[in-house]
């Protein structure tokens, strides 16, 4: 089989601000190279030297341009190493942040009040300076992210310790300050962990405010799980409103964190209705939230499939299963002998597996028919 190519002209616009798209392009090129080798070995495909060189130089140009824009994994091995580096940098960042806390704890009592205040402010601003320095000097993104997390820890320490030194009344506004700082650092350093902390912080702050509007003390916001529902919906909608292509990899963090904050209160209230705001009996509240839980989980799965958000589908599935198994527990745990209970759960799971396999096979047959009709045309 011969492929007729003269010279491949690179009309492709490699300028993209979307790191996911760029990585996807690299993966596509690698997949193409692997498939080409397979075809040459097994299907008798032969490319001339000129054609091979043309394709290779085309791909090299794309890889070079995209690598200059983003820190990308150019091969499977690099991808595996990247995972290791991510885990190491996460552990390193958390350990450094914890170390900073305990450093202050240990030497706190040796310092006068003015030195304590100076050290706290210096730690916040100094760690921020280090983060900016590492970013501007083009150091590895991992070092910059570690420094950013330490900087966030320094600000948390700054405000918390000032509260301790001067015996200040606790306030939820501190959480807003920390979250705002985490957002700034997250977008500056492209650190998804910081976005996670920021989203959790904002969710909790809004839930606290919702709680105070209903007359309870802000620290007790967790006593009324419904306080989390409104902020969770707001955060879930945020990526649709403000998402930038360069930060598309932040969107799953927003979605998953907000969905967890939405489902957990529903799950709690479906089992413990006494702590609801609703002026109904506990049993009625539990029934309402059970219905909401199943409907919501199904809706989220549908939305995830429609929008091609795998993270959303997975989260919906996890909570659908949790709701389902919680109901099974409610119905059968006391009624059945334990071994029958677990066998029934297992049988239902196998039944669901069979159902999903059937749906999947039907979908494959459909795709095969479409493919065959396209080929005939």
């Amino acid at each position, binding site marked *: 089989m011969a492929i007729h190519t003269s010279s491949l002209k690179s009309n492709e616009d490699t300028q993209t601000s979307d790191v996911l798209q760029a990585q996807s392009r690299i993966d596509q090129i690698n997949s193409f190279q692997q498939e080409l080798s397979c075809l040459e070995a097994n299907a008798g495909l032969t490319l001339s030297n000129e054609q091979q060189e043309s394709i290779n130089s085309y791909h090299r140009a794309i890889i070079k341009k995209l690598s200059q824009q983003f820190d990308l994994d150019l091969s499977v091995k690099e991808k595996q190493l990247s995972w290791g580096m991510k885990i190491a940098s996460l552990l390193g960042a958390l350990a450094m942040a914890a170390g900073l806390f305990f450093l202050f704890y*240990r030497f706190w*009592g040796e310092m006068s009040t003015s030195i304590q205040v100076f050290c706290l402010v210096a730690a916040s601003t100094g760690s921020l300076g280090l983060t900016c320095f590492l970013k501007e000097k083009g150091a590895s993104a991992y070092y910059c992210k570690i420094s950013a997390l330490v900087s966030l820890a320094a600000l948390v320490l700054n405000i918390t310790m000032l509260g301790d030194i*001067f015996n200040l009344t606790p306030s939820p506004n501190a959480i807003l300050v920390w979250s705002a700082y985490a957002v700034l650092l997250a977008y500056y350093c492209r650190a998804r962990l910081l976005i996670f902390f920021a989203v959790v912080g904002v969710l909790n702050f809004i839930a606290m405010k919702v709680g105070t509007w209903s007359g309870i003390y802000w620290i007790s916001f967790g006593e009324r799980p419904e306080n989390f529902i409104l902020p969770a919906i707001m955060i879930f909608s945020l990526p649709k409103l403000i998402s930038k292509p360069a930060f598309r990899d932040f969107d799953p963090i927003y979605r998953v964190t907000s969905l967890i904050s939405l489902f957990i209160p529903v799950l709690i209230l479906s089992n413990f209705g006494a*702590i609801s705001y609703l002026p109904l009996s506990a049993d009625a509240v539990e029934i309402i939230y059970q219905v909401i839980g199943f409907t919501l989980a199904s809706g989220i799965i549908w939305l995830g499939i429609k929008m091609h958000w795998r993270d959303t589908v997975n989260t919906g599935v996890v909570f659908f299963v949790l709701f389902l198994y919680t109901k099974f527990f409610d119905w059968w745990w006391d009624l059945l002998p334990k071994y029958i209970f677990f066998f029934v759960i297992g049988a239902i799971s196998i039944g669901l597996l069979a159902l999903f396999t059937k749906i999947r096979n039907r979908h494959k047959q459909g795709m095969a028919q479409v493919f065959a009709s396209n080929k005939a045309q």
Partner: protein
Amino acid sequence: MKKFIYIVVAILITNGIILGKVFYNRTTEMVTLDLTERELAIPYRFSLDRESTRAKLNLKWRTINRTDNEEIYRYWNERQLDLPREKVRKLGFDIDEKKKRFFDNPSKELYWLVEFDGEKYNSHLRVLRQKLEVLEQVKPNKETRSQQELDNQIKRLKDKINAEESSKSRLIVIDVSAQNNFSIGKNNLAEGSYLVVKGLAKVYYDYSKVKDKEEPRVSLYLERMLISQIHLPKEKATSFPLKRDYDKKYRYKISVSWGRLFEPWVNNIEFLE
């Protein structure tokens, strides 16, 4: 570089706001009290807190409400404030049939009126001493009270009086309000001092001693003061022990002031022999 400067300025402004609040609080001394180890206890340090070199003291307070109840309920009783149902409702609590379980009730931030070494404390002490006098006059009776029972009762009462005189806190919470509108008359200030702090409380429904179809007694359970620990600055606490040694008896007097925002600070520390 610009972004760095903007964020540094934001951090400095945040710190400035916090320190400004501290300054504002300390511009007026609402009350200054000389508290002792009875009211400010050295805390026991758990787990990671053992590494901390920060000197702090726990503020001990109580109510004197249910003094006839058994000693095993003392911690619980010393946090109860019996108030009329209407007053509890006015504080913003919803006394609702459906949510009568303790842990379902939300906590509210309220202003607490706290008396230090005042009328409530001293009259309680007088009552205990009178009871002791009466008990010491009682003769044992085989049918009602044997000598041993009488001796035990007298010993318990003497221990209680001793504790009230030497170790129990003289900070007594006597009233709560949703607004800081306590009217402290001049004649009250003659005996003891009064302090207003912010604290958390929730409704407690007491079903004990309630007959069928009777409404439970409603009281407030005072959970905690919003500021329950006081930091000791290093300049004033150079030789202060960081953690409590149960074999030692610490005696000290600490001058503590409270400001406009109900936040305390330490003026002076004096060790007593």
